[in-house]
């Protein structure tokens, strides 16, 4: 990814290479987190409730990696609208998923 179209200033010349490396970084990190999660289960390193925590953290890390490197979401000012939308969605998801699980598991113990 070294050649570039006409009309791009010289200072921008390394941008294609940088954006290429960004996708490669995201791909490698995602692959590593995926293999770590599958490895932990295949080698029986985790079990029960502890597995939920470990696997959940690995999944969360990979979600953050893919948001960062594939979807280009970061903490820059120009991105705040998108980030706020994600955080608001996360709040709604947390309320609905957490609330559903809380109430239905509580109901189950009362039956």
């Amino acid at each position: 990814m070294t050649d570039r179209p006409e009309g791009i200033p010289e200072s921008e010349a390394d941008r294609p290479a940088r954006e290429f490396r960004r996708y490669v970084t995201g791909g490698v990190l995602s692959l590593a987190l995926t293999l770590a999660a599958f490895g932990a289960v295949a080698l029986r390193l985790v079990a029960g409730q502890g597995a939920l925590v470990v696997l959940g953290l690995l999944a969360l890390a990979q979600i953050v990696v893919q948001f960062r490197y594939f979807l280009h979401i970061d903490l820059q000012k120009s991105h705040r609208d998108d980030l706020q939308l994600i955080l608001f969605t996360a709040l709604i998801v947390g309320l609905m998923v957490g609330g559903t699980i809380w109430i239905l598991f509580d109901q189950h113990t009362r039956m």
Partner: protein
Amino acid sequence: MSGADTRHPGLNLGQTDAGGHDAAEEVVFGFWVFLMSDMVLFAILFATYATMSTHGQAGGPAPLDLVDLGSALAETLLLLGSSFTFGMASLALKYREGRTRLVAWLALTFVLGAVFVGWEVHDVHVWITQDDAPPQRSGFLSAHYLLTATHGLHVAAGLLWMAVIAVQIGWFGLIREVKLRLMRLALFWHMLDIVWIGIFTFVFLYGAVR
């Protein structure tokens, strides 16, 4: 990355197409709102699955009975690979004048996605015929099929969308409208891989050890 010309999620056209870059801000943000509402849909399906897989087995198959780790890993690598190749297609769209490289990366993405969907269909066939686990057998199985099939249908819809855009690239060339559609499809495709992270983690990996 210098921040000033980053205006929306996904790869920004920036100075390679300044007019398209301006036009992208609004339509990509609109599509981002749709994607977030789609995330809420999947979150509710995950919550239903969490409840049903614990209390809704009705004496039938448990999550462990449906787990084939090798199959889940293959599907995961196929979808992660296709997310990466779509990234390469986005770079070709932004920096390459010709269409050859873009179409080649899109074709590879399409093949990976199609093999993924085919593998999922095979999984369903195995569950129903060999594991005696049809969706109507228990609340857990209904929730299991609803979650995985909703994701599978999204991927299939993405494949259809990709085919339509490939035809448009041939028909209209890389005009601005086609570029903007490709950028939104890229977001859709990356987002489906993020949903799959949740599925392989909580349905298959946690299903194997709970």
